[in-house]
């Protein structure tokens, strides 16, 4: 006999539950998923993405096929792709939601039905008990049969009491000890309690992802019982939490997107290539359907050219030192010439004092002129050079670290501000359309440039972690630093371009956007390759 008709009830809409899996919930493998210093609390992309205007642009942006037509330099899209060009095997993965995973589980339940000849609600309970592993379930089933049903709280033979909600009656509830007119609920076991106590009991357990049983015996509540007591599709929340715990338990092949409020799960289909990745010091960067990219290995944001080891060390070190170094996180500085307080409001490090018009570099406080034209000197740390901010620190090593940490955080802060800038880019694209009739597709070069800027900035940021752990005397390190300088320069120049507000000027300088973005892409790629070389050759090594 087929039970398929009733199966519709299994395909419930998942509630938009407000309890999102938090960062810490998601990964309990001990790897840091966030830091306590300011820079790491919030990956840059997490800021203010609730702005709906911007969300739309982001999702529309996935039209990859557009870019070749609209970029002068046809370059590949993500850092992951950049790395793929080398010998690293490509990663096979899919992006799912808990709902999608649940649906695939339901289809397995359907497959099992003819084999087990049990109602699908019962099979669903068995699947939960065996952590959605049908092979193990079938094995145990052949061995134990009826005992399995008893163990799983499904055997109701010999029980004669009715199952379900009973109409209102005068009732003494042994849980709350109140005697009053109330509806009640019980399973076949006859353990009957008032509906309020049952609701409270079930509600507390919906998020645990475990089978809910009678309060006084092992008999299991099925989804239809839960919905009958709670009303609506409450069992969907239980299924959702059950899938979530399944994902947590299979963290080798399933990972949550670590971005706030993102409900995507990345499923790695082929885990065999992973070893190759760590051998090559490459990281397994993935992107979810919402366009969030992160490292599958450590759950951190994209951290190339650093590998997971360097990232882990760097993050730990930063956590240890952040209290000593919190001065670097300040957002305001005094103008080096007239001492007016200046707040940094864009990602670009080229500052112009609003009061005296002095142009200076945010990082070193020096005159901008030597930065803008040829070379971006701020990436070179000279041991002998007295840094005003750290001159009081007695230890030379701390001073060396302080410099790299400062560079790292400056780019972190810049990246955040760039992302804010991104929100206005959404408006700018709209402005292009409305004010001067540019088509939506044509306006996409702005969004594309912003993405490139972000990728460049991220690579630059993490390159300081690699540089910190590199042997400073080695020639390749010097080349790496040169590459940092070139990318730095390219990024600042693109960031500055993105500050332009007037739609007419933006359109007029469209080619410049293409060129500068293309240049940033090439420089990013060069820096990433060089960084990986440093790691491969052991010139840069994660260490305490």
């Amino acid at each position, binding site marked *: 006999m087929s039970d398929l008709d009733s199966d519709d009830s299994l395909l419930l809409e998942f509630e938009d539950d407000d309890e999102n899996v938090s960062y810490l919930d998601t990964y309990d493998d001990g790897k840091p998923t966030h830091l306590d210093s300011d820079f790491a609390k919030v990956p840059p992309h997490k800021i203010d993405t609730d702005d709906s205007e911007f969300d739309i642009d982001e999702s529309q942006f996935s039209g990859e096929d557009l870019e070749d037509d609209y970029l002068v330099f046809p370059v590949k899209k993500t850092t992951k792709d950049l790395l793929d060009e080398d010998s690293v095997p490509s990663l096979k993965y899919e992006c799912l939601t808990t709902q999608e995973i649940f649906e695939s589980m339901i289809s397995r339940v359907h497959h099992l039905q003819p084999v087990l000849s049990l109602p699908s609600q019962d099979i669903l309970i068995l699947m939960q008990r065996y952590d959605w592993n049908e092979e193990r379930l079938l094995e145990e089933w052949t061995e134990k049969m009826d005992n399995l049903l008893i163990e799983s709280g499904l055997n109701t033979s010999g029980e004669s009491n009715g199952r379900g909600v009973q109409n209102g009656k005068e009732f003494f509830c042994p849980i*709350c*000890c109140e005697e009053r007119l109330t509806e009640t609920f019980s399973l076949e076991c006859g*353990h009957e309690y008032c509906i309020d106590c049952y609701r409270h009991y079930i509600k507390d357990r919906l998020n645990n992802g475990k089978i809910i049983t009678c309060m*006084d015996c092992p008999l299991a509540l099925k989804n239809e019982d839960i919905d009958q007591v709670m009303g609506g599709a409450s069992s969907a929340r239980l299924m959702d939490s059950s899938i979530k715990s399944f994902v947590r338990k299979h963290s080798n092949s399933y990972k949550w997107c670590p971005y706030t409020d993102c409900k995507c799960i990345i499923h790695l289909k082929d885990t065999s290539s992973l070893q190759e990745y760590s051998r090559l010091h490459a990281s397994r960067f993935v992107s979810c359907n919402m366009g969030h990219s992160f490292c599958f290995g450590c759950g951190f944001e994209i951290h190339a050219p650093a590998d997971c080891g360097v990232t882990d060390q760097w993050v730990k070190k930063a956590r240890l030192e952040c209290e000593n170094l919190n001065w670097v996180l300040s957002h305001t500085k005094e103008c080096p010439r007239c001492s007016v307080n200046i707040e940094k409001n864009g990602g670009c490090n080229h500052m112009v004092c609003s009061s005296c018009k002095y142009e200076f570099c945010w990082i070193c406080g020096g005159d901008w002129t030597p930065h803008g034209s040829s070379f971006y000197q701020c990436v070179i740390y000279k041991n002998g050079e007295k840094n005003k901010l750290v001159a009081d620190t007695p230890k030379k090593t701390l001073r060396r670290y302080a410099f790299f940490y400062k560079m790292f955080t400056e780019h972190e802060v810049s990246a955040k501000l760039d992302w804010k800038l991104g929100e206005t880019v959404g408006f700018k694209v709209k402005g292009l359309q409305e004010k001067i009739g540019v088509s939506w597709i044509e306006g996409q070069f702005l969004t594309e440039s912003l993405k490139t800027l972000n990728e460049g900035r991220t690579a630059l940021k993490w390159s300081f972690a690699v540089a910190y752990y590199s042997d400073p005397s080695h020639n390749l390190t010097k080349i790496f630093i040169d590459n940092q300088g070139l990318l730095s320069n390219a990024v600042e120049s693109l960031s500055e371009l993105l500050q332009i507000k007037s739609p007419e000027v933006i359109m007029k300088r469209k080619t410049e956007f293409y060129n500068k973005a293309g240049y940033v892409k090439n420089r990013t790629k060069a820096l990433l390759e060089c960084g990986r070389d440093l790691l491969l050759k052991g010139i840069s090594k994660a260490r305490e």
Partner: protein
Amino acid sequence: MASLPKRIIKETERLASDPVPGIGAEPHEDNLRYFAVTIEGPKESPYEDGIFELELYLPDDYPMEAPKVRFLTRIYHPNIDRLGRICLDVLKNNWSPALQIRTVLLSIQALLASPNPNDPLANDVAEDWIKNEELAISKAREWTTLYAEKK
């Protein structure tokens, strides 16, 4: 303070009128959710002849949430740590609102009768227990005489 739920009143009354042998539980006058508890060490266990003092508190959400219980008398037991905290499933994941103060205290008494060093809270004690059970038991007996002697 909000009035005491009927459930707590009922349980308190029954604990007084129909006490569990070897177990005493009395609420504090100024906080009726807070109980002074005594448990006699089970016969034929290293805790025999000891009287152990505990404290028990019924949180706001009781009986949906488990009671909180702690030993006040020092005890050498692999599932009880140096501060008297107890590792017992019914106090944690396996709590059910159908359980009661008396069933919890009975479970604790049963835990004294059969320690479970494979699921330890006090790791050093559990190690002793696995390495040399005889020695551990004699130490538990020693502590019982030392700290839990009948007054």
